[in-house]
């Protein structure tokens, strides 16, 4: 099973919280979405990941 994180195929994780932990981003200032749907911090542990899921992990960046 593989999932797509920020456009790159990644190793699997059972849920969103675990994925962030594996990436070293668990305590980072990031916001997340799965398959185009916003997932809040509190809902990450309860958001399972399945093969083919598209995960977006976004952080603050410069903007105009």
């Amino acid at each position, binding site marked *: 099973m593989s999932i797509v994180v*920020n456009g790159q195929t990644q190793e699997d994780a059972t849920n969103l919280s675990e994925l962030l932990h594996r990436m070293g981003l668990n305590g*980072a200032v990031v916001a997340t979405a799965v398959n185009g749907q*916003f997932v*809040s911090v509190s809902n990450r542990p309860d958001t399972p990941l399945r093969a083919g899921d598209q995960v977006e992990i976004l*952080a*603050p*960046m*410069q*903007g*105009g």
Partner: protein
Amino acid sequence: MDLLRLYGQEVGSRLLLGTAQYPSPECLSDAVRAAGSQILTVSLRRESATARSGQQFWNLISSLGCRVLPNTAGCHSVKDAVTTAQLARELFDTTWIKLEVIGDSDTLRPDVFGLVEAARILTEQGFEVFPYTTDDLGVADRLLDAGCQILMPWAAPIGSGRGLSHPYGLRTLRGHFPGVPLIIDAGIGLPSQAAAAMELGYDAVLLNTAVAKAGDPVGMAGAFAKAVAAGRAAYRAGPMEPRDMATPSTPLMGRAEWA
């Protein structure tokens, strides 16, 4: 004191500044201080587990003590804009959102139909929407009906520096909505153009490229701060009406007769 009131929040500066394209983080910090801006626009982009550039940027912005206005830049659909706004609300801990729904990649013209739809959805979800729009009066009406309490018309395409391309439209918008905060968003290239917008009665100016891409961004930020303040002061002082014909300013009474 002449404060700017936006969704119940009062700020002293009428110059909102973007945070992109500066030569260095230090230059960005110095430019913000020179501009005296109290509201900075920010964005969201993919974070890398290794680079973690977003964390570094966030530390910098936090140190400046300004309110942030996240944008939905790059969104071409209502769905993308709404989802981005939802992520931004959690990430930046604010209900403010600078709503951009782009309709055309060459001009970055707003998709005003999508903009109104997204504004309505986000307002219903508790957002306080700053819509990047045109000077179209009908669209402005729809945005206000959708719950927006602020309008942000473009002066010219984003990053073009062309100035006030349609002064009549901007003046008309000001006249139709005297009680609505109006912020010029995009297209300003020179301090004189910012001053002209403020002289029309606009409440504030939002710009980025004109400062960030200047030869001396910090110097240009200071120049814009003075121009915005001057334009605001001129508007409040009541500019004279232009005339077609000359009127002598020196009194004719008592003029010498030279035979």
